[in-house]
């Protein structure tokens, strides 16, 4: 049995032509990234069976949900769908909403336990409440729990955070991340927010006008200069590492990689735990020599692999660290000339600020 997600859709919706083909691994979060109208939601609807592409293939973990003339109706597909608006049933309590799907799957398929989900998403105190009395963030957590409790083979999330304000969004991230750690369900996560992709995405499918522009490892795609993500104002790179040490004196936690270490504010995490950090392109500066007379803690040897002008005054450089991970730096063209920046050049990346995201 091949684990993973295989999608091949050809669908005309009015003036819009969806023509996408991609595969996603059987684990982790695959971000479907693109502007509104790029076909992200249409893909999720086709996977869930809510819409039927005249020609299409949807295969999940080796099981064909659509292919040739066969089309499995939505209620026979093992999906957990989280809609943009929580869409809780207003006539049911929080508990009844959570149990709606849970009751409808056979007992021996309920490998995700009710109590686990309630605890993980922190919805215990709301169980008896009417859904109308929940805040936006709470509603979305219940919706996620409701989808999870069908013990799905794939989780489909359609911009689940877009209706939330900044605070509620930040509050819900940890839940989404722990979801990923706790249950190894592959998810397709629709988003148009690069920061969400950086935080949650392991893989990425980049969409534009109903077509796949690029697909692959999220950290790589985020920094590829030929793709739009790197040119965003708050473009980021993502570095994978592990918790290597805590500095009690200065209240820091060191995140280690093969290429060097990064300091973040002290986090109470066990040494050795996997960690993911986010670095904004504009927080990275370049130097020809490793300075010790600087306030910057994170200095890593790196090699310039690609550069691109993004405005008359600014330029992006894509750097490769010693362990092959990539880092994005944004600098003025003036500085680039002063450094004599060119591809293949070896220098030092100075990272002013690093944020731990998982």
């Amino acid at each position, binding site marked *: 049995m091949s684990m993973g997600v295989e999608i091949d859709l050809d669908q005309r919706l009015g003036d819009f032509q969806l023509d996408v083909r991609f595969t996603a691994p059987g684990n982790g979060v695959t971000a479907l990234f693109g502007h509104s109208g790029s076909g992200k939601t249409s893909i999720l609807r086709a996977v869930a069976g809510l819409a039927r592409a005249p020609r299409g293939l949807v295969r999940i973990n080796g099981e064909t949900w659509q292919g040739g003339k066969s089309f499995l109706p939505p209620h026979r597909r093992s*999906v957990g769908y989280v809609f943009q608006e929580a869409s809780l049933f207003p006539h049911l309590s929080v508990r009844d909403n959570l149990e709606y799907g849970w009751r409808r799957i056979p007992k021996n398929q309920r490998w995700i336990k009710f109590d686990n989900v309630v605890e993980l998403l922190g919805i215990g105190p709301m169980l008896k409440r009417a859904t109308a009395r929940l805040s936006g963030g709470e509603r979305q957590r219940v919706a996620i729990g409701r989808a999870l409790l069908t013990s799905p083979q794939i989780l489909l999330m359609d911009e689940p955070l877009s209706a939330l304000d900044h605070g509620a969004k930040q509050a819900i991230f940890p839940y989404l991340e722990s979801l990923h750690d706790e249950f190894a369900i592959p998810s397709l996560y629709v988003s148009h927010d690069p920061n969400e992709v950086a935080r949650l995405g392991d893989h990425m499918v980049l969409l534009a006008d109903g077509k796949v522009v690029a697909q692959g490892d999220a950290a790589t795609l985020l920094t590829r200069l030929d793709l739009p993500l790197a040119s965003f104002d708050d473009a980021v790179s993502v570095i994978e590492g592990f918790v290597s040490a805590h500095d009690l004196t200065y209240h820091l936690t060191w995140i280690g990689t093969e290429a060097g270490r990064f300091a973040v504010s002290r986090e109470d995490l066990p040494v050795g735990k996997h960690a993911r950090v986010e670095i904004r392109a504009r927080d990275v500066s370049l130097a020809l020599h490793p300075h010790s007379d600087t306030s910057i803690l994170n200095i890593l040897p790196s090699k310039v692999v690609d550069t691109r002008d993004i405005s008359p005054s600014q330029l992006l450089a894509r750097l490769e660290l010693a362990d092959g991970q990539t880092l994005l730096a944004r600098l003025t063209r003036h500085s680039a000339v002063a450094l004599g920046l060119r591809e293949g050049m070896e220098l030092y990346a100075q990272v002013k600020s690093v944020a731990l995201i998982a």
Partner: protein
Amino acid sequence: MADVSFDWEPVWLTLELAGLSTILLLILGTPIAWWLARTTAWYKQPIAAIVALPLVLPPTVLGFYLLIMLGPQGPVGQFTDAIGLGTLPFTFEGLVVASVIYSLPFAVQPLQTAFESLGSRPMEVAATLRASPWDRFVTVVLPLARPGFLTAAVLSFAHTIGEFGVILMIGGNIPGETKVLSIAIYDHVESLEYDQAHILAAGMLVFAFIVLLSLYLINGRLDRKATT
């Protein structure tokens, strides 16, 4: 005042007719309303117009055509006769058929509005939560469209009770079979029995007011429940 031999038969007959018609209207009106609320077919509007016809037609016109259709020379009449049911005009069953047709828009329109205002999202959510189409309808649509069902039932019931023209055309005035309240009131007035007419007419007035008041109270309560 009314003499002791006050004839309650038209009252019971009317309640029986209205009750039966309402049940049939909900059973028949629900799929029609559901279809009208969902379909994108080009013939949606013509069908909607046909369903709404009884709203604008004089009841006598409707009754006249029903009489012809259901009568011994009419296509429906010949069919019912052939399968051994006899013909429907001037029977209680004929009144039920006529009432259902006459009150159809009063059942279909509130239901259609209720279904349309639900949108497709709740059904889609239920589908992704493994509910089959019938399961979705029973556990999501019915409870969410409850105010619509209530309005449809009350309007159908009240409208059937109030009909006169259609019944006069197709049912006549047979005691215990087709002599319903509205006909009985007309009869009493014709024979100058104003006391008898008063009892029935005032009774209907009070009844209509109570029905509408309870409808508004219940719908108001459902609304408050949905928004708190």
